[in-house]
């Protein structure tokens, strides 16, 4: 796997968060529907498409043509397809 690693002694956020660069995408959250899962309006999510969702995965699904963050348990395969698995979230506190 191609992994981007810095040669300096600095800790690399890429290295920490991006396990599969070719399959990793970032998306921005709009809305408060996932607050119970610790995901807030304005958060940036790290989406790893290389992963297969597990029972309790937070995923990005395509529902009615829209990218939608949701719990894998809550969707049915008739109305939604999996776009990627959410690996982490980043929130600006300032």
């Amino acid at each position, binding site marked *: 796997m191609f992994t981007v690693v810095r040669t300096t002694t600095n800790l690399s956020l890429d290295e920490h968060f991006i396990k599969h660069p070719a*399959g990793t*995408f970032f998306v921005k959250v709009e809305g408060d529907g996932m607050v119970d899962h610790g995901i807030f309006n304005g958060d940036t999510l790290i989406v790893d498409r290389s992963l297969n969702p597990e029972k309790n995965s937070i995923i990005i699904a395509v529902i009615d043509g829209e990218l939608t963050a949701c719990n894998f348990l809550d969707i049915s395969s008739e109305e939604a397809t999996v776009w990627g698995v959410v690996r982490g979230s980043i929130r600006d506190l300032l």
Partner: protein
Amino acid sequence: MTIYALVDCNNFYASCERVFNPKLEGRPVVILSSNDGCAIARSNEAKECGVKMAQPLYQFTDIVKKHDIQVLSGNFHLYTDMSNRVMQVLADMAPETQPYSIDECFLDITGISDDLDEYCLKVQTKVRQWTGIPVGIGIAETKTLAKVANRIAKVSKKTGGVLNLVGSQWQSKALERTEVGDVWGIGKQFTKKLNRNGVNTALDLINQPDGWIREEMGVGGLKTVRELRGEDCIGFDSIPQPKQTTMVSRSFGQTVTDLDDLINAVSGFATTAAADIRKANLVSSAISVFMETSRFSNEPQYAPSQSVELSPATNNTKHIVRAAIQGVKEAYREGFKFKKAGVMLLDLVDADHAPRSLFDSHDPKDDKLIEAFDAIIRQQGPGAINFGTAGQPSAWHSASAFRSPNFTTEWPDIPTVKT
């Protein structure tokens, strides 16, 4: 014997747009060249609506309205980034890969012990899952046959997008289904000549005597025919140039770490590429610069690519070199030992058909300069003269009214998701 697989992304530009805008799935999509001049890519649905390749937008506005076609400006930052991702997934899976254009890659799968069809289905599934891009794969004993197989794999639903012609009884069927004009390396001129002589399909072609083919189509034509007969003439390492993109790249004898050295190397590649497309009377709307560290060392790895728009479309060495340098500067990071670098000129169209815009900054003096430049290169070989690498690229204005956001390369542009 080498076994080749050609992986080709289906309707690549439209597919890139669909990954981030799933509403476009199943809808006709047309991508325009820079300055929104003419159609450079079409989804299957748009082809069925009757939009032609390279057709100027004003000629098909009625069709757009009638069929509710989604018209988008080309977003080369998005396409190069997605291309890079696809190539990385392929490089992780196959023993050896050779990217051939922005959306095509040859794999050498000679050493694969699995069933080749199953292996390629896995490749197809993995590329789709990781990147969202659908691909078709053709497998054969020569590159030209792999191209034939790929073409059929993409149009025939029965194949599931993968067609293996190795030792297959389908080989002659496949050749029979392929018109000579669709054979890799046979241009319009030869197609006309062949058709006049009653040679219509690839199968007709391979049954012609060698002497006749050499006489009519030269040594290059004979090479193509021998490839169609299953004789490997091109080999894995050489790259015949594709039509819509041109690529110049080289592995360095010694690894390169210095930005100035990279700029020098890439300026040279850009100069060669520009001369190539001028010779073919083509212009390009975007250049992609790439560099990579050695995959086989334990050193830190980095394989960026950066695309820079050329607007208006151009084959002017000065503009192309400037854009290439801008690309190198943006992609470069300190501390990596680069083993290879290259440039790819994208979205090539006939210079006579290239859209000109109000903002076109064409300077007739440039033409004279380029003529002189080409003359020197012809006499003394590439590298005899180079454009100075100083100075910033001018801010070319580009009218791209329907461009999608840079979903994967700019923070403010990342897709939003609902909850």
